[in-house]
């Protein structure tokens, strides 16, 4: 993982420091039983060894303490894996149980998944820091972070079931086998897990266990698909999301927020709002005015009836056109700080045989998950309960505590399936959760409150992928080799001014520039700078974060350099990947499967449309993905006909989930490439709903997507995000191959292609 240490950054954040200091540390493996109900395999707290591998320190047991398990085997023979990561579609409720099932030799039918409580360090994310002091889902780390821990949990559980059988049958443990959820002995004795769970839970803890060699895996990596554990509930309308939470006496709330980012409320007239039938309360909270009602429609009606006057003197009033003008001026200027410097880029460029100059603009982007932000909160003396598709448990717990006036450990979070997030539910200030808690607090805790954001709230509400400008100069030698690159990036910092500011190193926010060409290709002379724009538009990590723009720049620049050098785009990339064998292997696999070396006629076809093929490869979140796409441009619009994808994500635990994530990453990235844009006019967001913030629909999804997974014995790495970065540049390169149009702004403007029709 190349994630910065988020834990260290948060360590100095007062709310979190308090939380961590109040949690008792249990650096031990704990096995416990719930009285009479089976085997509960408890806390496995690994620490990180010097080589970065996770190791389990030791063992400690307190019978009857069922506080923080990872695996629970009930007498009804179900095996429940307690998942510390939110299921937001990326498949953790399937992938994490698969890891346990493998080491446990369970039957897939008996596996279940449930969300863990918000509790550190037990459920901390070790990709965020070695102490487990921050729980959250992000950076495509769920599997990488749980892999070793859950393998151990499964293996310990198996060993204890075997010991229980050994004791019961009076046969040596070494003679007992486990397969498909059945413990058996050569004498013909057999028992299901549930029959042994109670006895197993009372046993002393084995000193250590042996994990399977990957060659012994039966479930992990199997092309015999493991059905997702959440498909049935999500195909019958029975999956509960936060918006579906119904609590006794619960009220529904909507919040009127400032019309401009940074505007403040001057005065409020709630008379008409209070008169709306069903409205029970109107309260002011730090982020706006909340209307609380008996149902959603009344809350919406009440909000529409609010009369609020806003003080816009301190608000952000620039439009996006003005911002990009400023970004161009700031680029590489006095405020720019060094990101990377090697060799003599300026000198090499001055001597280069050919220099190509590029300017790129990327708009703000909303995440627009299908379930808008929603959370329910209930306050009672000394207690705050939250129901949410929580993505950032520890941060949310601390922020909710501040809003409620409680201690973090008095905040209980029930994590529900999230109706998509793509980063949106992981905010440093826990916006939607704090709103729900603030409303519950402002109404005196008289009733539970469910906060609902409308789609308009979501699209206009900020927390966007930062608008970004890149200026690149790249030089080729006489023999067509890349000799130097000068790259200047301008955008806002996601982490500056937040609890995550500690992630900034040497003045550079890594999330602003990650994934640039100098990280991923061998370039002798390079100078990369970043200038931080100060804008009042709230921003956030958006599926693949900095890679959303750096991959596009890198792969479009590389493709045009190859063309300028008269070289094949794949071969040119491979020449830059000599020290990046994984990326090279992924690119080669994609090229082979796509038939890259077979003839492909680019350009105008007999029927007047244009055909083209394009490639891009990119490493992010520990994985490498290459896409090779074929497009048809007709009458100024592009259709992606075929995508051939190769991915190296280490061991693909559940290959079908990996494929689903690649498909998803492609579709999400295509939305941004073809349509995605949040623009502002005089500080006001121009788009409000899906008619203006257009996203990909079924008729626009590539009809052919072939996904090839590189066989690997490396530990699993990310799959939720890495499919997204290379799709837009692959399509841009294909469009250039088809039409000659060089795309420099997202979303793609194909007006020039329309003109070519004639």
């Amino acid at each position, binding site marked *: 993982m190349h994630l910065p240490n988020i834990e260290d950054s948060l360590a100095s954040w007062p709310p979190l420091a308090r939380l961590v200091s109040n949690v008792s540390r249990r650096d031990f493996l704990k096995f416990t039983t719930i009285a009479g109900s089976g085997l509960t395999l408890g806390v496995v707290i690994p620490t990180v060894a010097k080589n970065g591998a996770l190791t389990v320190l030791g063992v400690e047991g307190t019978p009857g303490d069922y506080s923080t398990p990872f695996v629970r085997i009930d007498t009804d023979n179900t095996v429940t894996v307690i998942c510390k990561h939110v299921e937001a579609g990326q498949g953790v409720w399937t992938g994490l149980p698969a890891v346990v099932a493998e080491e446990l030799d369970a039957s897939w039918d008996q596996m279940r998944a449930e969300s863990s409580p918000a509790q550190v360090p037990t459920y901390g994310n070790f990709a965020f820091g070695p102490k487990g002091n921050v729980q959250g889902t992000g950076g495509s780390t769920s599997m990488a972070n749980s892999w070793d821990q859950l393998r151990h949990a499964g293996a310990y559980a198996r060993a204890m079931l075997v010991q229980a059988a050994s004791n019961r049958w009076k046969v040596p443990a070494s003679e007992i086998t486990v397969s498909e959820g059945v413990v058996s002995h050569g004498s013909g004795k057999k028992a299901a897990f549930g029959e042994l769970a109670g006895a197993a839970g009372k046993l002393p803890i084995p000193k250590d266990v042996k994990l399977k060699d990957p060659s012994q895996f039966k479930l992990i990596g199997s092309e015999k698909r493991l059905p997702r554990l959440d498909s049935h509930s999500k195909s019958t309308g029975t999956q509960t999301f936060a918006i579906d939470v119904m609590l006794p006496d619960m009220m529904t709330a909507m919040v009127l927020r400032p019309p401009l980012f940074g505007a403040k409320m001057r005065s409020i007239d709630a008379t008409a709002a209070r008169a709306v039938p069903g409205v029970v309360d109107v309260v002011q909270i730090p982020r706006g005015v909340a209307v609380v009602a008996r*149902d959603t429609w009344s809350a919406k009606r009440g909000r529409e009836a609010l009369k609020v006057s806003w003080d816009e003197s301190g608000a952000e009033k620039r439009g996006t056109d003005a911002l990009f003008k400023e970004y161009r001026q700031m680029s590489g200027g006095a405020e720019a700080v060094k990101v990377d410097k090697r060799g003599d880029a300026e000198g090499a460029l001055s001597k280069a045989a050919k220099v190509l100059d590029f300017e790129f603009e990327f708009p703000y982007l909303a995440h627009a998950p299908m*379930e808008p932000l929603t959370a329910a909160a209930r306050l009672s003396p000394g207690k705050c309960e939250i129901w949410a598709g929580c993505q950032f448990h520890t941060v949310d717990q601390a922020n909710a505590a501040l809003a409620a006036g409680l201690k973090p450990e008095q905040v209980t979070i029930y994590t529900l399936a999230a109706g998509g997030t793509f980063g949106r539910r992981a905010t440093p200030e826990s916006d939607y959760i704090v709103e729900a808690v603030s409303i519950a607090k402002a109404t005196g805790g008289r009733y539970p409150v469910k906060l609902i954001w*409308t789609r308009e709230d979501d699209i206009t509400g900020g927390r966007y992928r930062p608008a970004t400008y890149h200026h690149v100069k790249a030089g080729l030698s006489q023999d067509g080799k890349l000799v130097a690159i000068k790259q200047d990036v301008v955008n806002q910092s996601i982490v500056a001014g937040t609890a995550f500011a500690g992630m900034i190193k040497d003045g550079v926010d890594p999330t602003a520039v990650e994934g640039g060409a100098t990280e991923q290709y061998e370039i002798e002379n390079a100078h990369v700078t970043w200038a931080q724009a100060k804008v009042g538009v709230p921003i956030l990590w958006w599926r693949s974060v900095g890679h959303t723009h750096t991959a596009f720049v890198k792969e479009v620049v590389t493709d045009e350099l190859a063309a300028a050098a008269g070289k094949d785009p794949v071969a040119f990339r491979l020449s830059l990947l000599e020290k990046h064998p994984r990326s090279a292997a992924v690119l080669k696999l994609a090229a082979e499967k796509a038939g890259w070396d077979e003839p492909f006629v680019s350009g105008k076809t007999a029927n007047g449309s244009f055909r083209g093929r394009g490639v891009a490869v990119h490493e992010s979140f520990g994985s490498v993905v290459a896409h090779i796409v074929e497009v048809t441009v007709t009458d100024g619009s592009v259709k992606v006909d075929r995508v051939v994808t190769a991915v190296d994500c280490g061991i693909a635990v559940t290959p079908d989930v990996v494929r689903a994530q690649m498909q998803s990453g492609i579709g999400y990235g295509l939305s941004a490439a073809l349509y995605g844009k949040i623009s502002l006019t005089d500080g006001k967001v121009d788009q409000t709903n899906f008619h203006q913030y257009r996203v990909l629909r079924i008729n626009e*999804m590539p009809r052919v997507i072939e996904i090839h997974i590189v066989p690997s014995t490396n530990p699993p790495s990310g799959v939720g995000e890495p499919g997204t970065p290379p799709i837009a540049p692959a399509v841009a390169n294909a469009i250039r191959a088809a039409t000659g149009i060089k795309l420099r702004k997202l979303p793609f403007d194909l007006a020039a292609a329309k003109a070519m029709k004639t």
Partner: protein
Amino acid sequence: MAIKLTVNNQPQELDVDPEMPLLWAIRDHLKLTGTKFGCGMALCGACTVHIDGQPTRSCVTPVSAVAGKKVTTIEGLSGEAGKAVQTAWVGLDVPQCGYCQSGQIMSASALLAANSRPTDADIDAAMSGNICRCATYARIRAAIHKAAETLPAKS
């Protein structure tokens, strides 16, 4: 005055603002939460229900407009096409986050009830009103074809 309608074959009376969208009446008052809110403007299809068998966006349909009509939500989905669609959805593991899938399934089952051998163009026409941000579209298309295979062809 209460509005009378039938929801999932059960007679219901809703004493709510007649302008209240059916979506919120179903969710908040009948406690049937399988139907989802996504946009409020009939742009995303997450709220799709059947009204007298026709796929309809409940987020822009006032309760008053469905008086005396038969509403079917995901919870009440039955019949050959509906079951075939749900079986195919589970069989191909279509859902990711799952939030839009009730609406997708209601649109798909209405399509198959009317046309048990849809072409890709038919699927595009029937399903392009349903957004999925996880982009499960390839599997949605495959699942509709798979469900169709299990249904008798209609002449």
